[in-house]
């Protein structure tokens, strides 16, 4: 279709909408620079005192640390389990395995409040409330489907004859997995690990239910700050989070561009 008046108008509208999606978050930047002790827009004078507080406060630092530990552990565990599972499902690929795949994706789509209830319910008798293990396990179950999706997407483009060839040449299952399958699905594995990390790093609803005092993640502390709605340190934390998001995004873009490039010549040879 030739771009008519409507299409042009729509394109402008789409740009406005896309800017509407991104710009509101930027207000955290000026608010974080206010010299006042309460949440406000700075007038004239700027100050970095809230960033100073963020990076010297024991509470905020421990939250950064705890969130980091939990997100890294979740990412490793979810990536390990999710990758294995994706390869298994890909190998089996029967009616039942597709059912299992659909089932395993459920934690991603079932409302988080229900997941939170479920974990809360089970973590009480298991004594996992308010512990690292409890949070890591819960986040892993929520994040593993992400890994399953990204790895499965990579496997979809993997030529199963390569696996056959490797086995015919005498490689064991384990060797085939390590030297043939894993290297070719690396982009999917890394993407899955990154998504799992972000999910855990940013998770609040389940965390609200299953953590209390001893584990106090960053989202949890931000949630408190937002509810109290006075301390500008929250704004500084928000700015740091935006920065981390952008860095992660750039890394991800570079990675996926690189993997697209490395795939391109192969495609050309076919």
């Amino acid at each position: 279709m030739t771009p008519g008046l409507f299409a042009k108008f729509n394109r402008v509208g789409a740009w406005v909408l896309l800017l509407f999606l991104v710009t509101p978050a930027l207000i955290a930047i000026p608010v974080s620079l206010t010299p006042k002790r309460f949440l406000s827009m700075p007038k004239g004078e700027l100050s970095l005192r809230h960033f100073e507080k963020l990076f010297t406060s024991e509470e905020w630092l421990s939250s950064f640390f705890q969130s980091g530990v939990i997100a890294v552990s979740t990412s490793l565990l979810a990536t390990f389990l999710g990758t294995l599972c994706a390869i298994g499902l890909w190998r089996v690929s029967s009616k039942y395995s597709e059912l299992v795949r659909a089932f395993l994706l459920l934690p991603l789509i079932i409302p988080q409040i229900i997941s939170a209830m479920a974990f809360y319910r089970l973590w009480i008798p298991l004594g996992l409330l308010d512990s690292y293990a409890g949070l890591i396990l819960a986040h892993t179950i929520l994040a593993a489907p992400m890994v399953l999706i990204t790895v499965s997407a990579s496997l979809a483009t993997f030529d199963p004859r390569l696996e056959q060839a490797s086995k015919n040449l005498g490689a064991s299952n384990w060797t085939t997995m390590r030297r043939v399958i894993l290297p070719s699905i690396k982009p999917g594995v890394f993407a899955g690990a990154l998504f799992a990390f972000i999910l855990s790093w940013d998770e609040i609803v389940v965390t609200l239910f299953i953590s209390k005092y001893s584990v106090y993640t960053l989202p949890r502390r931000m949630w408190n700050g937002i509810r109290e709605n006075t301390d500008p340190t929250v704004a500084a934390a928000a700015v740091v989070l935006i920065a981390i998001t952008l860095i992660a995004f750039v890394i991800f873009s570079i990675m996926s561009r690189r993997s697209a490039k490395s795939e391109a010549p192969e495609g050309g040879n076919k």
Partner: protein
Amino acid sequence: MHTLSRHIHPGWLIIAPLLVLVVALYLGPILNILWLSVTDPEPGFGNYAKLGESDALIRIVWTTVRICIITTVFSVTLGYSIAYAMVHCHQRQKNYMLTLLLVSFWISILVRTFSWLMLLGRKGLVNGTLENIGLIAEPIAFMRNELGVLIGMVHYMIPYAVLPLLVSMQSLDTRVMDASRNLGASGTQTFWRIYLPLTLPGLVASTLLVFILSLGFYVTPAVLGGGKVLMVAEYISVQLLVTLKWGTAAMLAAIMLAGVLAMLWVMSRFMKLSTVFGGAAR
């Protein structure tokens, strides 16, 4: 072992760890909650009967459904416009648009909610600006009401609405539209009678996805509603963490779960679910 592996594909061995984990630590307690909804505080359907008796409960459910419907209508309409623009422009421009979309997708929900708090409050940036340029005398109440919740939710849901639509629009055969134009249809006719029906699967998937995600939304309604707009998710959390009434909360969760699963089933008729999630995860 050999007889076993003849019947069971060895691939199941590496599926098992995750499967066991999810069944034991996720499916188990969810079934337990469903069970609780008919046994706590006493066996029977007393919890479900409350839905017919208690005005407060009905109001909460109705508020939730209403807000979800409005959110879905706005998000999908605006999302359609974005997806359409993205498919019909140059690759370069499309990449910029995709970047903006994904960045907004990646920004923490807490950061976004905090930003809306700063923007929409009585002394927020929006009211401040409007007063300064003399457009309004009194601050507009953007927060602690449904308007605030809707703004926050639509803002959050738009990227989720766009991604399934984008997948659906990209897979269209554009020659069909050319054919329609060649046969004398106007651009408007082609859009309404060819383009829109062909993107219907994406539209349905996007609608249901946004609706499902809105149903259980907790953070934005709790903060921007400021206690004035009570939705099911927040009500459940109050029941569990403050009044410790599992029965009512379990009943609401059971209904929500049934609704979500029913919608997923409808969705699976229109689109391969993994494509929707695959798109959404990026």
